């Protein structure tokens, strides 16, 4: 490119101002920011819903809401948190960081990128609108079947279900397009010299996530479309009266649903070693082993779905197969844990917020992982299944493993993205309050489940009262603690001490060679790797 052409190009690249900039942007940093802001907003929406639920469960009896609304809140909470908070947060980081980490000028398919994001707000509107419509007397509220949408309950459900089906379609299209973009970017736009086995682990984690999404989202889309035609067009996919089978829906759903757990967690497990290495001031241990572990978990993730439906009447052979294959996941996971701890070993650690959240994530996710191993046992699972034990288990994996991991990433990269340092004091408060309140909320739920409290009930027997009370108090503190994060992020965006190119002493990687915040266009000439 000659100097004249470059000047022309840059003049052309001046973005429109105001909201038009955000609507039309194809810049990976802008789109990444939008994903992250959307995710944060939805995190509070989903959180507010579950605080209403916890308020209802504060003591026995129905005080605040009818069971119908309760059922809607728990299901929409899950859909919002998984599809609109966790996944967009991971995609936001991918948009921001993967091009910077691999030395690419932008994502490979910038217009697709814009569309992937802009499908999310309509999807959120579709999912949440039935709540508002019900206030005006239209319909009976949002989807009331829990996020698992099991037929035939979902065939029976009101029009909130149809809204949810279309919301899921939009979210699915958005995810698949985002995934294709990430795969193409990683495979084609790496800086010269960056072979796949030199790819940063965050990019590896995302590459596997993207492949899993492309593999399983269409299955979910198919399942909910079959649901739609069962509801309105006289098909009987899930109706035994017409030769169908309600359990077919559960198979299809969990064929998507189990990999979904790793879809949410792989990006986090991808950047966890970056953070551990930065704050231990020591290179990542076992890079190859971690990549191979990702591959093994990715493959296992699509063949273990049956452990979610062990009480539905699988054959003995089926139960044994799903039990042993599920237990096998602990093998590659043990490799990841080993590598994480070995990365810390004999380092020179300091404990800024990203490190605290990463370490907290490892310990608390450990609880989730180990209880998962226990849950895999098909006989004992008959006791745990559908109980609060499971609720506690998956919040240890998805809140501790997912959201606390995302927090670690947010604090790690906020200085890079904004150019300012966040308030470390506020962040430390955020971590400790979150860690304590999280355990206060979810530890009692293990005991509730063991004592026999089923999940998704709006009211409970008196013997469950004490632990529910503790759990609700914990949940209010947990929710309040997240406001510290909001304050910190807003303050950090608006100003603060300059971060410099590399705010973390031990951080490694191409993204830290750039100024903070990075200019609008980066790596227009390709960096040359070693």
């Amino acid at each position, binding site marked *: 490119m000659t100097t004249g052409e470059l000047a022309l190009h840059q003049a052309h690249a001046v973005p429109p101002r105001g909201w038009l900039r955000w609507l039309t942007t194809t810049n990976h940093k802008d789109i990444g920011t939008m994903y992250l802001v959307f995710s944060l907003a939805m995190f509070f929406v989903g959180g507010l819903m579950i605080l209403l639920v916890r308020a209802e469960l504060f003591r026995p009896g129905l005080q605040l809401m009818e069971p119908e609304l309760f059922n809607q809140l728990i299901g929409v909470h899950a859909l919002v948190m998984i599809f609109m908070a966790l996944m967009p947060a991971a995609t936001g980081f991918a948009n921001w960081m993967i091009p910077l980490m691999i030395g690419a000028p932008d994502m490979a398919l910038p217009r697709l990128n814009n569309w992937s994001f802009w499908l999310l707000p309509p999807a959120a509107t579709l999912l949440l609108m039935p709540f508002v419509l019900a206030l005006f007397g239209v319909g009976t509220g949002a989807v009331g079947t829990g996020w698992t949408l099991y037929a035939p309950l979902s065939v029976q459900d009101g029009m909130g279900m149809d809204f949810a089906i279309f919301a899921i379609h939009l979210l699915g299209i958005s995810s698949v397009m985002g995934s294709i973009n990430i795969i193409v970017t990683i495979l084609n736009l790496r800086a010269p010299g960056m072979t796949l086995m030199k790819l940063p682990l965050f990019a590896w984690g995302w590459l596997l996530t993207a492949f899993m999404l492309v593999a399983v989202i269409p299955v979910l889309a198919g399942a909910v479309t079959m649901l739609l035609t069962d509801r309105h067009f006289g098909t009987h996919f899930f109706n035994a009266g017409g030769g169908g089978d309600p359990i077919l829906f559960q198979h299809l759903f969990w064929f998507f649903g189990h990999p979904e757990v790793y879809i949410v967690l792989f990006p986090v497990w991808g950047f966890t070693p970056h953070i551990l290495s930065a704050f231990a001031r020591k290179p990542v241990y076992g890079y190859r082993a971690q990549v191979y572990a990702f591959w093994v978990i990715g493959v296992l993730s699509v063949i273990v779905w049956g452990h979610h439906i062990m009480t539905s009447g699988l054959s003995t052979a089926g139960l044994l197969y799903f039990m042993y294959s599920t237990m096998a996941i602990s093998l590659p996971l043990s490799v990841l844990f080993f590598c994480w701890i070995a990365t810390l070993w004999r380092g020179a650690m300091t404990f800024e917020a990203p490190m605290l959240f990463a370490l907290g994530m490892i310990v608390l996710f450990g609880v989730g992982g180990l209880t998962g191993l226990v849950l895999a046992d098909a006989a004992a699972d008959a006791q745990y299944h559908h109980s609060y034990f499971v609720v506690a288990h998956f919040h240890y994996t998805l809140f501790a493993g997912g959201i606390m991991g995302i927090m670690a990433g947010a604090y790690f990269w906020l200085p890079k993205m904004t150019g300012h340092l966040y308030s470390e004091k506020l962040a430390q408060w955020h971590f400790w309050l979150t860690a304590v309140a999280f355990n206060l909320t979810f530890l009692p739920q293990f005991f509730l489940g063991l004592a026999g409290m089923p999940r*998704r009930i709006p009211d409970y027997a008196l013997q469950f009262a004490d632990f529910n009370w503790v759990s609700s108090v914990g949940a209010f503190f947990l929710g309040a603690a997240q406001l510290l994060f909001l304050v910190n992020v807003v303050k950090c965006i608006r100003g603060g001490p300059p971060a410099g190119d590399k705010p973390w002493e031990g951080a490694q990687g191409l993204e830290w060679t750039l100024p903070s915040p990075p200019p609008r266009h980066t790596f227009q000439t390709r960096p040359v790797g070693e």
Partner: protein
Amino acid sequence: MSVKFPLLLAALAAAAPHSARAEWAWNFPAPVTPLALDTLHVHNTFMAIALAIFVVVFAIMLYSIFTHRKSRGMEPATFTRPSTAAQVFWTTIPFLVFAFIDFILMGIPAYHSVVVMEDTRSDADMVVKVTGSQWKWQYEYPEEGIRFVSALATTPEQIADRAAKGEHYLLEVDHPLVLPVGKKVRILLTSTDVIHTWWVPQFGAKRDAIPGFIRETWARIERPGTYRGQCAELCGKGHGFMPVVVQAVAEPEYRLWVARQKGEQAAQAAGAERVWSRDELMKQGETVYGKVCAVCHQAQGQGIPGAFPALAGSKVVNGPALDRQGRLVKDGHLDRVMNGKPGTAMQAFKATLSDSEIAGVVTYERNSFGNKMGDAVQPAQVKALR
């Protein structure tokens, strides 16, 4: 903040439920079947193993966190992989330990538990059929010809906090399932509408009840007593109000109960042969309506707009039920009650209600909530339509 914080906690503590029944239970309730005992044993063993792994792994990590700090002047090491043969050996240890735990230490007992759990048939002494319906359980003893519905007995006033909650709040029913102790009971499960899950924690038995299919589990109760559980699969608005109560009694007592049930059912069947007065039908209908119908159609028949249709002034209720020849009017009132409406929560009540109950409730609905049809349906007419 320092002043307000304890105040807030004190306020929360004051609002906490202080109930004699509330208890801090840390583990499964006491098992009363071999299956539950086995499950508890497996659970305790696995939890101990998981706890041991947790403690060992995070003790190592914690040691590192406290020792390998910059503030202690640590010079960071630079290793990225095992370099000596000894190190390679040590890195395989966690992997091997997990493989051993998964497939030997936990895998073998788990295998046996699964085989025991799934063996519902060998040496079974009797069969009970359990049918889930929104939101009650129907129990059937095929060998004895006994059939009854078991529904929540807790009053709506207790749930709405307008009356004191009883000891077995939400875990009490009008007709518990009665089973003999010491017998292997094969429990067959199905459903008439959506998926339910039958669960009694002290039996270690939990299995889904799926419309259109039969699933099975089993229980051999070793101690007489009353055992309580709940529906465990989200099944709509009444999911939290669908308890399972099982009364386990000694064999002679069980035989006595069976004889009494048979007598009652015979009396009920005889009821279909005679002509009922309108008052009798209305009284019978009011009871049935309160127990079965009011949960959706509401106490005054007003329904819930958008979800459950009103019966007051309803076209179906105020339309013909039977034609001149005594045949069902398609999609008429009696047809709806007996055969349900597919794809909705309105189920086919001919499966769960007796002739006199159906006749009573239809008569009641046609002559209550402002509906003034003035006619009556006789149990004999219902019986003829089955």
